[in-house]
């Protein structure tokens, strides 16, 4: 019986070894893609770097491609404003929601809500953009800006930030919930058995233990917000000026690239400047990802510490 079961033992072992090699190769290729993209972007942005120094590219305000002036400050400022507004709106929501779902809600409710959060994360960003155009922009123009006595077209940093916040929330909630779930129940029991209330336990024990992971979740959210293009581009106004308030229009880096690449490339160095912007984005997002991953793996270590 056993003899008949494996007619070609050699082939079976060969397939085993071969499949490992293939999988190994695929992993290396996907890693290489990142390196190749980074290198290509650097290579193509060298002409503009030769013309202007790195600091002056980042810090000068004048954006006049036809005169050969490439100051990225308005775009960097636009990106920071939009991302900042998004994080300010999204972070409290994420923190409180994930705490509620993990620590307080019943399992049934959690299982009902989870798919909604996941679907929210999977909606194409154009849809968020349209929603921003139809709801957020008129809301800011008609209600919010007049409330502060400011006249705004509605296409502004705040609109971009609000749309982004809604896009970031599901991702960050998802990771934060995973982080909170790694806090051992015995730790909660230990605190509760001392007579601590649920809220005291969450505040002093669970949050303290989960904090590095939550920060990492937020940094990942931040990096998503940083690179998001189309939804922001649709509502943010796209004016190459440093915004002075949240009701001013802004022009984030991704929008700059998406709007212009392939259109005005007859201008010398223009494509090089845009690819420099892309390189900048890539490096920043890469940096955020590495940082958050380092924090996350740090919590995994401390897990053993406390266990």
């Amino acid at each position, binding site marked *: 019986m056993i003899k008949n079961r494996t007619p070609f033992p050699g082939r079976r072992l060969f397939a085993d070894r071969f499949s490992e090699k293939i999988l190994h190769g695929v992993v290396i290729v996907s890693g290489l893609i990142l390196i190749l993209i980074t290198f290509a972007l650097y290579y193509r942005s060298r002409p503009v770097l030769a013309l202007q120094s790195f600091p002056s590219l980042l810090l000068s305000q004048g954006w006049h491609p036809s005169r050969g002036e490439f100051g990225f400050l308005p775009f960097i400022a636009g990106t920071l404003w939009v991302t900042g507004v998004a994080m300010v709106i999204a972070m409290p929501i994420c923190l409180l929601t994930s705490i509620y779902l993990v620590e307080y809600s*019943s*399992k049934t409710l959690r299982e009902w809500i989870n798919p909604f959060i996941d679907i929210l994360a999977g909606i194409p960003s154009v849809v968020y953009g349209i929603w921003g155009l139809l709801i957020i922009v008129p809301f800011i123009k008609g209600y919010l800006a007049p409330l502060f006595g400011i006249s705004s077209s509605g296409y502004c940093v705040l609109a971009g930030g609000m749309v982004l916040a809604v896009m970031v929330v599901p991702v960050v909630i998802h990771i934060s919930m995973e982080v909170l779930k790694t806090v*051992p*129940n*015995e*730790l*909660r*029991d*230990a*605190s*509760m*058995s*001392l*007579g*601590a*209330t649920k809220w*005291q336990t969450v505040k*002093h*024990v669970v949050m*303290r*233990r989960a904090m590095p992971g939550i920060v990492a979740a937020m940094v990942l959210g931040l990096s998503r917000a940083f690179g998001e293009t189309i939804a922001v581009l649709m509502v943010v106004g796209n004016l190459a000026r440093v915004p002075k308030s949240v009701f001013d229009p802004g022009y984030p880096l991704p929008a700059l690239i998406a709007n212009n690449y392939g259109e005005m490339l007859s201008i010398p160095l223009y494509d090089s400047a845009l690819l420099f912007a892309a390189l900048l984005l890539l490096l920043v997002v890469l940096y955020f990802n590495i940082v958050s991953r380092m924090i996350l793996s740090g919590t995994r270590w*401390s897990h053993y*510490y*406390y*266990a």
Partner: protein
Amino acid sequence: MESKAHISIQNLNIYYGKDHALKDINVEIPKKKITVIIGPSGCGKSTLLKSFNRLLDSVDNVKITGKVLVDGEDIYDPKAEVTHIRKKMGLLSQKPYPLPMSIYDNIAYGPRIHEERNKKKIDKIVEHFLRTASLWDEVKDKLHSPASQLSVGQQQRLCLARGLAVGPEIILGDEPTSALDPRSSQNIEARFQELKQQYTIVVVTHILRQAKRLADYVLFLYGGRLIEYGPAHEVLENPKEAMTKEYIQGVIS
């Protein structure tokens, strides 16, 4: 019974969903004695212990009927205040779980959540209970370093001190030495022997020799039922029930 009942359990039934974990438990746990709960894994030992301070409340799908009276008060009365009940009992779990903070803050945590703000008083409490847990000499120079840096045995004594610092009357131990090396286990057992002068102690264990060393009373659970309960020497040396005898001889497990 020689002394007054401290915890009195009446018709206690516990279900996890459809799983009937504890069946009609009736037992009186005496004051200032060590009661040891023995039985094979999965017989409901830990469940019984956790029902004493309502730690099962947070488990999904759990259903509890019957009464658990502590000092004559039903702790499952809907009007009972759960943090007040839990404050009466210190819990030691299988593995020590120090809170993610310093040694000092671990002990101070309990008094602080019960709104003790006087720093001198907290200092005194910390020192007193670290001494009670015979940990003071080992940690007095590093009170403000993270508790996670202590050895597992030290951590378990820290958890003991932490539990005592809220002024409980009862100490619950859920296999409190199972993660410890022999010396640390001995240390914890010695603490229990000292502490029974002042506290009612209930310990779950699956180590029979430990039960023999510690117990004043022994409670034998099997398959969620209370099989036998009585003074330690009777249950361990002259069990009335055939099942208890078989368990002690190692025939069933």
